[in-house]
């Protein structure tokens, strides 16, 4: 084929161009055979074909054949997005013996056929995109992907059901796990619940065996009352600094007998485990089945730390395990992979002032109710009003509190409908009270979930479709005196109703942990606008993140129920085990590189790197890019004034050639209007 373009330095490479029809996705709009015909005259092109499905086996075989028989040194495929098939075609090149970085893709589907209606214009644009790719690929250089070894230790942050599941799966495989939990015991929110839907299994009964396994497992190092302070490194090679907070109890001596808690004179409202509804002592373990079973001393509420007196726990401890002089321990561990399973916080229902939580005594939140119903809770499992003794005769359960609401959280919290049905059942079973559920929709998608809804209807729950407008204690007529009145529009009847009840339970929504943003930053991952951790792909990769080696599982990724949390915990474990199993991992080769000779050591690039991938070599006075951490974003390249950093696979030559290829074509086809359109 004759190369005809004037002013073009002679191109040494032998370039193959393949234009894909993608069925009718591209061919329906772009004249693909015309594009292939036209591309043949671009400088360096020796082969130019079009084909129905380039990603198929015959399509790939075509490329391999041409590489081998026609001696191609560069390949361009004009088809879909590189996100989908760059890997496919790079793989084909590699199998043919051509370095995969000598391949370039032109996206004439998402960037052309799918967004252009005019066929002539679409074809012209396709030509420009192909010309750009052809120009670029001629300047591309072979690159080798970096291989890094994987440390088989794993860090799991968060000891709720998702974290426990992940830890157990990895530990069972023979690999070692550090399970770090902020509270004195693992168990998370699930330990607070009474029963779980839809089976009405007792939450503690199904959770504690897993907790005990995790506590006893030879491959799990349990670090409770601890937090991660710093994370350095990259996939396969993380260095994590932890703070193991002082319990003021010597774990090697403590037998978990509980005498210290009995004797402690200082009672404090337990805001965490008892949801503010019950009390604990200054020395406490959050619940009887705590794992590990050693108590901690709450320094801020302990008489000894406040005034220097008391020491009742020390006096009565039979093994002398109380150690007031214990210090926080800073630990540094090396792990290869990290799983974040930090869970959720409950939406603060005090914000919804028309529901009166915090002002009206007998309005409770979901977690408060779980504690009421739980046999180990502050009322021994009796469902009573705030006075601690009266059994309610009528109860209202309000769905969607703080969820699906532009005034608070926009999203649906996924579990509240099922949870509200569960509450209705528990109330009915324990008190025989009249139960109302106020809802906008009933969302019961899981296995056995809609059947659970049917069951609740059979049990006599009264369902009113209407989002509760107001909960008030101001009576308007005799029957309302001394009650809480739920004011709502029964939308199915089209009338406003005022329903007097004794007790109201608010199904408050789930939201991301208050410190989610800081935690994300610590681990180098991102949060969405709602502050849930962001997954790599919402459909196809929900447990991975954009940071290699860091995975997420459970409610921290978004509101979900226990089965989904367990599944994600297991999924994250599987991903980690697959990385460990590979023993080494390939890192994308398009990384930045510093020219040591010209680098002046100004460190501007270090400051600008969003991934903290560049370090300063003190002895040489030069910057150095840690390839495994580099994401190839190019920020440092733009920042470096003397231009001594370059980005492999995105060099100036390549980028300029790409632009020239495109612009020349656009000019030829007048894709850039020379004067205003008529």
């Amino acid at each position, binding site marked *: 084929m004759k190369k005809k373009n004037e002013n073009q330095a002679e191109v040494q490479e032998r370039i193959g161009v393949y234009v894909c029809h993608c069925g009718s996705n591209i061919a329906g709009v772009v004249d693909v055979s015309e594009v292939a015909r036209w591309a043949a005259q671009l400088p360096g092109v020796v082969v130019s074909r079009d084909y129905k499905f380039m990603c198929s086996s015959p399509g790939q075989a075509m490329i391999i054949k041409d590489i081998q028989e026609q001696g191609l040194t560069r390949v361009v495929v004009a088809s879909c997005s590189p996100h989908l098939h760059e890997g496919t075609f790079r793989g084909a090149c590699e199998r043919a013996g051509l370095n995969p970085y000598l391949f370039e893709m032109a996206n004439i589907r998402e960037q052309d056929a799918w967004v252009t209606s005019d066929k002539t214009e679409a074809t012209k644009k396709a030509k420009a995109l192909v010309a750009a790719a052809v120009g670029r690929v001629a300047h591309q250089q072979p690159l080798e992907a970096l291989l890094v070894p994987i440390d088989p230790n794993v860090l799991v942050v968060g000891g709720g059901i998702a974290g426990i599941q992940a830890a157990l799966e990895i530990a069972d495989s023979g690999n070692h796990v550090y399970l770090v939990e902020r509270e004195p015991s693992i168990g998370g929110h699930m330990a607070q619940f009474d029963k779980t839907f839809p089976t009405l299994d007792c939450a503690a009964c199904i959770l504690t065996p897993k907790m005990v396994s995790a506590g006893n497992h030879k491959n799990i190092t349990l670090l409770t009352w601890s937090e991660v302070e710093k994370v350095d490194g990259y996939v396969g090679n993380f260095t994590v600094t932890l703070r193991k907070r002082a319990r003021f109890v010597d774990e090697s001596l403590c037998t978990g007998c509980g005498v210290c808690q009995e004797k402690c004179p200082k009672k404090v409202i337990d805001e965490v485990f008892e949801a503010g509804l*019950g009390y604990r002592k200054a020395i406490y373990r959050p619940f009887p089945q705590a794992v590990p079973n050693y108590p901690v001393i709450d320094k801020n509420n302990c008489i000894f730390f406040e005034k220097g007196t008391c020491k009742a726990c020390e006096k009565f401890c039979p093994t002398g395990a109380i150690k007031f002089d214990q210090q926080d321990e800073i630990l540094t561990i090396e792990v290869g992979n990290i799983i974040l399973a930090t869970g959720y916080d409950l939406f603060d229902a*005090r914000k919804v002032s028309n529901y009166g939580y*915090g002002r009206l*005594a007998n309005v409770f939140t979901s977690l408060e109710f779980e504690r009421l119903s739980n046999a180990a809770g502050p009322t021994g499992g009796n469902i009573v009003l*705030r006075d*601690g003794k009266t059994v309610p005769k009528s109860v209202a359960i309000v769905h969607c509190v703080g969820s699906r609401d532009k005034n608070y959280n926009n999203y649906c919290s996924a579990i509240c409908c099922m949870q509200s049905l569960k509450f209705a059942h528990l109330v009915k079973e324990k008190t025989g009270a009249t139960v109302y559920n106020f809802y906008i929709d009933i969302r019961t998608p899981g296995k056995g979930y809609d059947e659970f809804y049917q069951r609740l209807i059979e049990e006599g729950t009264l369902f009113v479709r209407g989002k509760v407008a107001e909960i008030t204690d*101001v009576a*308007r007529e005799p029957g309302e005196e001394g009650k809480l009145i739920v004011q709502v529009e029964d939308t199915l009847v089209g009338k406003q109703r005022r329903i007097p009840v004794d007790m109201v339970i608010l199904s408050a929504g789930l939201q991301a942990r208050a410190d989610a943003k800081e935690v994300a930053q610590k681990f180098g991952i991102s949060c969405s606008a709602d502050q849930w951790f962001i997954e790599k792909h919402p459909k196809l990769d929900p447990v991975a993140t954009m940071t290699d080696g860091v995975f997420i599982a459970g409610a921290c990724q978004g509101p979900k129920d226990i089965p989904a949390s367990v599944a994600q915990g297991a999924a994250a474990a599987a991903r980690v085990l697959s990385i460990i199993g590979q023993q080494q991992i390939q890192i994308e080769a398009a990384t930045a590189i510093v020219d040591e000779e010209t680098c002046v050591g100004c460190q501007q690039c270090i400051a600008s790197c969003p991934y903290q991938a560049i370090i300063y070599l003190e002895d040489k006075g030069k910057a150095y890019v840690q390839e495994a951490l580099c994401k190839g974003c190019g920020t440092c390249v733009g920042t470096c004034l003397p231009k001594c950093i370059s980005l492999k696979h995105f060099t100036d030559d390549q980028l300029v050639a790409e632009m020239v290829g495109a612009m020349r074509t656009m000019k030829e086809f007048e894709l850039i209007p020379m004067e205003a359109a008529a």
Partner: protein
Amino acid sequence: MAKYLLYPGCSMESSAKAYSESLAAIAKPIGLELEEIEDWNCCGATEYLGISLTPAYALISRNLALAAKQANGNKVVVAPCSACYLNLAKADYYMREQPKLGKMVNEALSAGGLSYEPGTLAIRHLLDVIIYDIGLETVKSKVVRPLTGLRVAPYLGCMVPRPDYEKRWSDHEHPIELDLLLKALGAEVIDFPLKTHCCGGHMTQIGPETAFELIRRLISSADQYQADIMATVCPMCQMNLDAYQTETNRYFGTNYQMPIVFFTQLMGLAFGLEPDTAGFGSELVSTKRALAKIGVEIAETETAPARPKKSSGLPMPKPLPRKPELAEKSEAEK
């Protein structure tokens, strides 16, 4: 001394005379300088909005245009009347949210040689300015006759705390601003649950039965809480609860005698002014009994059954601090 542009509103000169008198009396002591907008016109209340969009907003915006022209450095318009306040605030807000509306309104204003750039002025309610600009400390310092023993039901009405597009108020349902002001005057403030419930507005003229029911709810609740007097910020609310109390009583066969005054009147009393200087005397439901209460020396207060205080039982969650500056102050009040 801060200077504000004042939009009095039509009621201030007639039915809410007590408001304007008491406002004039207390403004100087607390250092509130008010400059009336030249030749302001009626804001249209809730009437013009129900007839036609552009004329309604043009009517309101003539005032905004005049105020902006008056070129007062402060650029804050204070409206004591809730409906006027809401209309002025809404007009400015909607013209910003929807540029098309701003264009139409300005086109209409141009026929009168006026124009208004949305966002130029800040529209604030009188109570907002007293709490957040003047400050409770200043108010407290002027109190010479604390209203000790006077049980006051703070009644804010609906149009001040809602819709509150500029987020000036601590809450939409149970804001604490008026409570704190009354506490600063030394009064015993009841935790009035209907403090932002509607008085019925113009329904007294259009659909009296609807209005009477709304009025009854408010008065009976204040009565249940054994309030001596209600304090409000809005001329319409005062009118409805005061002037229509007799008709409401007649309609329901009740016999309430709940006086209702403007909060500025109570401020006047607390500042040591004589009742007639503080705007008293024009209300239809007598305030005699209530005033007598604070003429009496500070004896033990009658313990009235307030909200049942739990002594035993399960703990309640702590209240949510809505605005940090108010939270600190309310702690100080305790």
